[in-house]
């Protein structure tokens, strides 16, 4: 059985799923992730599913499970890079991801996590500095 690697970057964990997920590997991932968050004390988890082409209801539920799991360790979860076909499938299956945040790509996902953790620390982040001026 293939195991999904969990990488630590700064104070967040990156889970990049590059294999065809089977129920066994999903369960193993959940266990590994819980272990990892508790040992590293990470404040955020990014799940990159840009390589995932096929989902079923079990995998759909995985995201919500991981989110509530990391919530217990006070970590936020962001799912990034979902393909259109996967999104349509999940909607057709009637699955919602609970309070999981989503982002278009890894870059934006990390930005979302950073602004979330910054907000939690009570800091203000200068994210909205790119103002465009239109004369009319």
């Amino acid at each position: 059985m293939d195991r999904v690697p969990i990488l630590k970057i700064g104070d967040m964990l990156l889970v990049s799923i590059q294999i065809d997920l089977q129920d066994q590997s999903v369960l193993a991932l959940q266990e590994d992730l819980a272990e990892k968050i508790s040992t590293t004390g990470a404040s955020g988890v990014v799940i990159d599913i840009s390589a995932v082409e096929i989902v079923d209801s079990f995998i759909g539920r995985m995201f919500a499970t991981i989110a509530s799991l990391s919530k217990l360790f006070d970590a936020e979860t962001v799912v990034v890079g979902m393909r259109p076909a996967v999104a349509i499938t999940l909607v057709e299956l009637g699955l919602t991801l609970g309070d999981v945040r989503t982002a278009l790509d890894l870059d934006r996902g990390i930005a979302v996590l950073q602004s979330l953790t910054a907000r939690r620390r009570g800091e203000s982040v200068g994210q909205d500095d790119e103002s465009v001026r239109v004369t009319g």
Partner: protein
Amino acid sequence: MVAESGQPHRLAEVLDAERDRLIGRWTELAGSALRGRLTTVELERDLRDLYGALLPVVTLDAELNQAESADLKAQLADLSRSRARQGFSPTETASSVFALKQAVSELTAKDDSPETFREVLAFSALLDTLGLWTFETYAAAREELIKEQSEQLLELTTPVVKLWEGVLAVPLVGTLDSARTQVVMEKLLEALVETGSEHAIIDITGVLAVDTQVAQHLLKTVVAARLMGAECIISGIRPQIAQTIVALGIEFGDITTKATLADALRHTLQREGVVVSRGARDRTR
């Protein structure tokens, strides 16, 4: 030529012997109905081909399911299709076929033996079937054309346009059905990934009616976009449609809806942190 009963088929013999005279008369009769829109040479070539395919099936029954008639059917289908393309009505095509009846009856008018009569009757039944077959082919060709066009329409009527850096819009026009919404959904989601846009506006100003099914489709699209990490706004809800939506008890939940596309764009720009301000007007111009 010999019929299945072993008796010589007299009509078939006549048709074979008088081939040129019959084709000439047939062309004349068919040509008068077409009122000169097809040259006599062209028409005669078409009819001669048809005649050649028709001869071997004369001795058979009027039912056209035998292997021998496959060639004839194919030729008729070709004829019908090309006539349809040239703008002839199906009646005109069919009456070209029926014209042979008159040509044959003129030829056999003097022969009043019951045998010939029966054969001519069977022959005209055969021609009736062939005429109907041209109708069928005509309708099938039309159906094909309509299907092709509606597919093209589906592609054409769902453009995804970029309004701003990171803001896409889909102006929907016409009626929404499942097939169309599916196309819209797929195209929009693909475009979100391709352009890396975080905002999408679905403008339904041009949508004639919204019922529960259409609303359901719209909701699905919005939820799918949200799953991918993009925000989707619905704009251009007209007063009548708003009333219908409320009357039907459709819940849009926490999905942002705006009255006009401009409002929706303003909302997304605000979310993006873009400030649009009116500059000092250049009065020297």
